[in-house]
């Protein structure tokens, strides 16, 4: 697997508090604080964390929709290595053809005054890549791929439901035939049944068009379904990154464990999951010393965790953790927390058979009469 994007020590700081012409602000909100990881070609990398952990900022700064303060984002394009952070504006525009974004809220990310066709085709027009009939053809093709109908293209966004709007947003991102897409919580504003449709669509598109995703979400079960690798973020830093199976079955960072424990079990016979994580995320303006997770960590000691910042280190192949005691503590994964009722299992097949039989019986009876 080759690397598509290599992120090295990326930092995004926002100044807070008073600043004027002569004095610069002394305080910074460290939204992203020295993050390094690689995104492989054709993979779907999940990025999870609580709100305020900096996952959206990270996603946007990779595309330079937010200017990074420091660091490198290297995009590998056919033996060419392009550092996105240091690109000039006009070159960046060209680079954006290869990298696109899908936003969280399809109710506010689409321009109300443009028809769906204009929304999807806008970037083709802006880049002078197509016009006239060719434009129409390309827009229709992409729209069809995303499950929209040709006759819907002349409508305005208000006429669509949430799920369909998200399809428009996906079509807009795909029109430039990008290689890399940042999906910022693409399904969290949608209903469960529609969420499944969009997740399946994203998966199909990835296979058809060999796309690479950075999939930002706060819902771990969505990520477990969609992604093959997961990165966990806490207070602007990566705390763990590994294959999905490893993250879910053998997490090595206490924060990952507590995120897993917070998911309500789906078996009503199991007892209520006691809240493992007490309190809330501290302010990123004034993060705790040492390991930033230590005030909430049940395994923290009074010495090393408070004073020493843990490095993100590889403890087994492809499994990176930033915890001093990653080898020593044994943590519970998703399996130990809950037994799952498998609705697509044997029992359910029987039920579906039963329902089919019932249906056939009723229909034949009806014909006789």
């Amino acid at each position, binding site marked *: 697997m080759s690397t598509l994007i290599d992120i090295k020590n990326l930092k995004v700081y926002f100044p807070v508090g008073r600043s004027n012409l002569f004095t610069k602000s002394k305080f910074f909100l460290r939204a992203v604080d020295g993050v390094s990881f690689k995104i492989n070609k054709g993979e779907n990398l999940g990025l999870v964390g609580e709100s305020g952990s900096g996952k959206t900022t990270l996603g946007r700064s990779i595309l330079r929709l937010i200017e990074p303060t420091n660091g490198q984002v290297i995009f590998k394009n056919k033996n060419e290595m392009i550092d996105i952070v240091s690109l000039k504006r006009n070159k960046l525009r060209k680079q954006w053809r290869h990298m696109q974004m899908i936003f969280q809220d399809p109710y506010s990310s689409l321009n109300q005054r443009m028809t769906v066709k204009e929304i999807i085709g806008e970037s083709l027009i802006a880049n002078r890549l197509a016009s006239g009939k060719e434009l129409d053809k390309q827009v229709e093709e992409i729209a069809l791929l995303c499950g929209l109908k040709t006759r819907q293209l002349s409508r305005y966004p208000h006429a669509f439901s949430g799920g369909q709007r998200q399809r428009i947003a996906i079509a807009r991102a795909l029109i430039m035939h990008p290689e890399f897409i940042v999906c910022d919580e693409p399904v969290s504003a949608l209903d469960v049944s529609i969420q499944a*449709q969009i*997740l399946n669509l994203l998966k199909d598109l990835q296979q058809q068009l060999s796309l690479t995703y950075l999939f930002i979400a706060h819902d771990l079960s969505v990520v477990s379904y969609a992604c093959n690798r997961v990165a966990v973020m806490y207070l602007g830093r990566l705390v763990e990154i590994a294959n999905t199976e490893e993250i879910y079955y053998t997490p090595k960072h206490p924060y990952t464990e507590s995120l897993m424990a917070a998911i309500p079990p*789906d078996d*009503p016979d199991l007892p209520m999951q006691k809240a493992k994580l007490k309190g809330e995320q501290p302010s990123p303006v004034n993060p705790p010393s040492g390991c930033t997770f230590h005030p909430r960590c049940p395994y923290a000691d009074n010495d090393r965790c408070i004073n020493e910042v843990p490095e993100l280190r590889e403890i087994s192949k492809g499994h990176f953790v930033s915890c001093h005691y990653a080898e020593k503590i044994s943590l519970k994964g998703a*399996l130990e927390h809950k037994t799952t009722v498998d609705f697509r299992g044997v029992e359910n097949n029987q039920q579906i058979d039963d329902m089919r039989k019932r249906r056939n*019986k009723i229909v034949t009876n009806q014909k006789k009469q």
Partner: protein
Amino acid sequence: MEKKLLLKVKNLQISWLLDKALIPIICGIDFSLKAGKVLAFVGESGCGKSVSSLSLLRLLAKKLKIIGGEILFYGQNGEETLDMAKINPRGKDMQKIRGGMVSMIFQEPMSSFSPLYTIGYQIMEVIQLHKNTSREEAKKITVELFKKVGIGDAKNAVNRYPYEFSGGMRQRAMIAKALSCNPLLLIADEPTTALDVTIQNQILNLMYDVKQEFGTSIIFITHDLGVVGQIADEVAIMYMGKIIEQGTTREIFKNPKHPYTIKLLEAVPRLGNLEARRRLETIRGNVPGLFDRPTGCAFRPRCDYFMPGICDTTFPDLREVSKDHKVACYLYEYGESN
């Protein structure tokens, strides 16, 4: 001991008044709630779950009218019954109930407090209105409540403004406000949807404790079936203004009957079966609009078991398939007799 009945809703119908037409929003729902129990309403957006809960407090917008049915509230000792569907929504009786005996937690903790007053003031206001206490006493009660719902530094927290609270804290304050007059019934309209998983977990725990400690009945409204498994005693699945399946939580989760419920359970991505990583089951299409409600069963255009000539005639009745489990589907209505 058999628990007392607290609330009984009979054939409640709510319509949207347009210039000339009545668009049905809730087309006749029945349910009852016993004291100390938790009932969860689950459904996609637009299925009428919020409207039916708002109608219990008579908080509906002007264009929405209750056109039939009864909402019987049995009160403290189960004797005084009051039909909330009939009384004046602005009258004295309703004001006594609203906030005093029945209170509500809203979805958006951001917008359900006024930004102009301190959180403490907004809670004290409720207590003073319903309990006739002095300011000092109300403040004392508020501080106590804050401690109970787990807001740290309760004494100073009452003097803070909503913007100084995080989302989770605001939701805790919202629960404190709802509990301030020891209500008999708590209506929680998507209380965790706007929150993170970890905070959601804390809030669910808090609501569970509230139920255990105060014996408050809760109506829990959500679109996420996964949330209610532990907290609810009974689940009602709603689709386009009708209850299509109702039963104990265990029955609904382990033995769902209605095609919609099964699909809804399958559509949720789950932990645990990672190896399979199968495609998620989806429900075809979208919820139809209010103006093109299908004839007969409202789910039939999306249903895999659609039977022409049967499903498109009238809406199936909610029938009992086993004890404590009711389904509105023709598959079960005809099947048993043959």
